[in-house]
C-alpha cells in the first residue's frame, strides 16, 4: 500500500512537472488576445495577433474555436458510437441461442450496462453538442460561443469521463478482477448499485458525474450564446428552429443534470462513507428511482429535441417548402420541455407506488403525445405536395419521421398503466425506446452529418454509399426493433443474458426465432454503419472539393440559411481572385504586365 502510494505520488509529480513545462512553452506563443468577457479586460484589445492557431496536435488540444470544438465533439461521439455499437452487437450475438452464445452472465451484464451509458451519455449528448457547437454560432450570426474557454473545458471533461465509465474493462485484467466493469444497468437502481462492492461502479459513477458537469457547462454556454450573441438581424421571431430546440434542451439540461450529479454523489456517499440516503432506514431505495427518473425522463427529451430541430431544419430544404406551422413547432418544443418534468414516474408504474399518483403521471404522459404529434403532422404536411428531393439527408429525415411514429405510438401504449403493468419488464419497452434512440435520434444525427458535410469538410460525400447507409440502417433498425416489440408481446423479459425458461412463461421457439431475427437486423444495421464510416473517412480525405457555396441548391427556394452563406464567404475568401474586395488590406491584385 505504501509502495503503491509512493509510485502514485511519483507519477502525479511527473505529470504536474510535465504540465508546468508544457504550459511555460505554450504560454510563450501568446498568439491570442485576452477575451473581452465580463468587461474586466486588462489586456490590450488591439494587440496584434501573430498567429491564429498553433499547428498540429497542440492546435486541437488548445483550441477554443467553436468549430474546432464541434469537430472534436463529433469525432468523440462517433468513436463512442462505434464502441457502443460493438457492445450492442455482442449483446445481439449472445442472444442468438437461448443458452447464450458468446458471453458469461457477468460479462453480459457489464456490456449491457456500458452499452446504455455509452450510447446515451457518450454518443447522444456529445453528437448533439457537436452540431450545436459548430452551427449555432453560424446560424445566429455570432462570432463564437459566449464563453469559448468554458466550451473547451466542457469538451475536455468528456474523455476522462469516458475512460472512467469504461475503466472496469481496462482494469479487470490488470487488477485480477479486483476492479470490474459496473453491472448496475444504466439506471443504477438501488439497492443493487449500493451493494455491489466492485470499485468499478465508483469509477463509472464518477465518469457519469463528470459528463454531467460537462453537459451543464455546455448548456449554460448555449443559453448565454443564443440570448446575447445573436446578430442584430436575428431576433426571436426569425430564430431558426434548431437554435430553438437547443435553447429548450439547454434549459432542460440546466434543471436535470445537476440533479443527476447530486443523486450520484449521494449514491457514492452511500457506497463509500456509509451514509443512508438510499438505505431502508434512510430515504429508502425508491428515492433513487424518483431522483434518477426526475433526471432520466427529461434526459429523453434532452436527447430527442435537438434531433427534432435538425429534422425540422433539414426536411423543408428538400421539400421545396418552408416548415409548415413553424410557430407551432416552436410551441410544441417548449410544451414538451415543460411537460417532460411531469412524467418521470411512468417509469415506475410497477413499483407499487400510490395508485392516485400513478394516474396523474399517466395523464401527463399521455398529454405529451399531443405536442409530439403536432410536430409529426407538421413534418408530414411540410412534405405534402412538396417538391421532394430524396438526397441522403432527406432520406434520413423521412426515416426519422417514420421511426418516430412507431416509437412514439408504442410509447403512448406504455403510458397507459394497465398496458405498462403487462409490458413493463419485457422487450416491448426495449423495442419502443430503441425506435426513438436509434431510429429517430441516430437517424437525425446522420441527416445532420450528411447535410452539413460540405460545410465542415469542404468536400462532398459519396452519394451511393450514403444511400446504401440509409437503406441498410432503415431496414436493419426496423427488423431489429420490430422483432423486439414482438418479443415483448410474447412475454420475453428484458435484461436477461439467457432465456432457457419454462415454456409456460413464454413460447420458447417463437422467442428464439424473434431473437434471431433481431440479431439479423442488427447485423444489417452494423454493415450499414461500415458504409458510413468508410464514406465519411474517404470522402473527408479524397472527396471532390465543393466549389459552390450552395451545394444543395437552396437559394432557388429562398432557403439558404446563414451557415451556408458563411460557407460561401469562406470559399470566396479562399480564392480572392473571385472577389478583389476580399484581398487583405493593402493587398493588390497581381498586375499582368504582358
Amino acid at each position, binding site marked *: 500500500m505504501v509502495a503503491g502510494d509512493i509510485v502514485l505520488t511519483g507519477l502525479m509529480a511527473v505529470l504536474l512537472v510535465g504540465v508546468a513545462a508544457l504550459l511555460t512553452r505554450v504560454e510563450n506563443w501568446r498568439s491570442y488576445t485576452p477575451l473581452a468577457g465580463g468587461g474586466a479586460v486588462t489586456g490590450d484589445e488591439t494587440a496584434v495577433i501573430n498567429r*491564429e492557431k498553433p499547428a498540429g496536435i497542440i492546435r486541437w488540444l488548445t483550441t477554443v474555436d467553436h468549430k474546432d470544438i464541434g469537430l472534436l465533439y463529433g469525432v468523440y461521439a462517433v468513436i463512442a458510437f462505434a464502441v457502443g455499437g460493438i457492445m450492442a452487437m455482442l449483446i445481439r450475438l449472445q442472444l442468438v441461442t437461448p443458452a447464450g452464445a458468446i458471453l458469461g452472465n457477468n460479462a453480459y451484464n457489464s456490456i449491457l450496462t456500458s452499452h446504455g451509458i455509452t450510447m446515451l451519455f457518450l454518443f447522444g449528448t456529445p453528437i448533439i453538442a457537436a452540431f450545436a457547437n459548430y452551427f449555432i454560432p453560424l446560424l445566429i450570426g455570432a462570432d463564437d460561443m459566449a464563453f469559448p474557454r468554458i466550451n473547451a473545458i466542457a469538451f475536455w471533461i468528456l474523455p476522462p469521463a469516458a475512460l472512467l465509465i469504461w475503466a472496469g474493462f481496462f482494469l479487470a485484467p490488470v487488477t485480477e478482477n479486483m476492479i470490474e466493469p459496473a453491472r448496475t444497468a444504466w439506471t443504477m437502481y438501488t439497492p443493487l448499485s449500493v451493494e455491489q462492492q466492485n470499485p468499478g461502479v465508483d469509477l463509472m459513477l464518477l465518469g457519469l458525474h463528470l459528463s454531467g458537469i460537462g453537459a451543464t457547462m455546455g448548456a449554460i454556454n448555449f443559453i448565454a450564446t443564443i440570448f446575447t450573441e445573436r446578430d442584430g438581424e436575428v431576433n426571436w421571431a426569425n430564430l431558426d428552429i434548431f437554435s430553438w430546440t437547443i435553447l429548450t434542451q439547454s434549459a432542460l439540461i440546466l434543471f436535470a443534470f445537476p440533479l443527476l450529479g447530486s443523486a450520484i454523489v449521494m449514491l457514492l456517499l452511500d457506497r463509500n462513507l456509509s451514509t443512508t440516503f438510499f438505505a431502508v432506514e434512510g430515504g429508502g431505495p425508491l428515492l433513487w428511482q424518483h431522483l434518477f427518473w426526475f433526471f432520466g425522463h427529461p434526459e429523453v427529451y434532452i436527447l430527442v429535441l435537438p434531433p427534432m430541430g435538425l429534422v425540422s431544419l433539414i426536411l423543408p430544404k428538400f421539400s421545396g417548402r418552408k416548415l409548415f406551422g413553424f410557430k407551432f413547432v416552436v410551441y410544441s418544443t417548449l410544451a414538451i420541455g415543460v411537460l417532460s418534468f411531469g412524467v418521470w414516474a411512468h417509469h415506475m408504474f410497477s413499483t407499487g407506488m400510490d395508485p392516485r399518483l400513478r394516474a396523474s403521471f399517466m395523464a401527463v404522459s399521455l398529454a405529451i403525445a399531443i405536442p409530439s404529434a403536432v410536430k409529426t403532422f407538421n413534418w408530414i404536411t411540410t412534405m405534402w405536395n412538396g417538391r421532394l428531393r430524396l438526397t441522403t439527408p432527406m432520406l434520413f429525415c423521412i426515416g426519422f419521421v417514420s421511426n418516430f411514429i412507431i416509437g412514439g405510438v408504442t410509447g403512448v401504449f406504455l403510458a397507459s398503466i394497465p398496458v405498462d403493468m403487462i409490458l413493463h419488464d419485457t422487450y416491448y419497452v426495449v423495442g419502443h425506446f430503441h425506435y426513438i434512440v436509434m431510429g429517430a435520434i441516430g437517424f437525425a444525427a446522420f441527416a445532420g452529418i450528411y447535410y452539413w458535410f460540405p460545410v465542415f469538410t469542404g468536400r462532398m460525400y459519396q452519394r451511393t454509399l450514403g444511400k446504401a447507409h440509409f437503406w441498410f440502417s432503415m431496414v436493419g433498425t426496423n427488423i431489429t426493433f420490430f422483432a423486439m416489440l414482438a418479443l415483448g408481446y410474447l412475454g420475453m423479459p428484458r435484461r436477461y443474458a439467457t432465456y432457457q425458461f419454462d415454456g409456460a412463461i413464454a413460447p420458447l421457439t417463437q422467442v428464439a426465432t424473434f431473437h434471431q431475427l433481431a440479431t439479423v437486423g442488427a447485423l444489417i444495421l452494423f454493415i450499414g454503419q461500415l458504409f458510413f464510416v468508410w464514406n465519411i473517412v474517404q470522402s473527408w480525405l479524397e472527396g471532390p472539393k465543393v466549389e459552390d457555396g450552395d451545394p444543395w441548391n437552396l437559394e432557388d427556394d429562398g432557403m439558404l440559411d446563414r451557415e451556408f452563406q458563411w460557407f460561401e464567404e469562406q470559399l470566396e475568401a479562399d480564392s480572392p481572385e473571385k472577389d478583389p474586395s476580399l484581398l487583405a488590406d493593402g493587398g493588390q491584385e497581381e498586375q499582368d504586365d504582358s
Partner: protein
Amino acid sequence: MAEEPGLSDQYPTASPWPLFVALGLALSEIGVFVGLFPVAVFGLILFGGSIAGILTESGYVERPWPTLLGVGVVLIVIAAAFALWQVPVTDIALSNVGTGPLFTRLVAVAAAGAVMIAMGGVASVMEQTAA
C-alpha cells in the same frame, strides 16, 4: 479551406488552460472519492492552478497568485468545516491519517490547499520583491 478564415479570427482561438482545468477536475474527483491520497492532492493542485491560470489569461484577474492562494484557503476551510462537523474532535490528529475514510480524504484536501497557499504566497512575495 483556409486554416481559419472565419469571423473568430479577431478572437482568441487557442488557450492551454481548458484541458488542464478538465484534467485537474477529473483527477480531483477520482482522488477524493476513490480515496487515492496522492491523486487527490495533485489533482486539486492542478485544478486550482489551472483556475488561476485561466482567470488570468481571460483577464478576469491581473495576477494568478492571489487566486491560487484563495482557492487554497477555500479548500482548507471546506476540509476543516467537514472535519469539525463529521469527525470526532479526539480523532483529529496527524497519527490518524490513513485510518478513517473521511478524515484521510479531508487531510488530502487540506494538504492540497496548504500547498496552494504556500505556492501562491511565495510567488506573490517573489513577484513583489522582483518588481
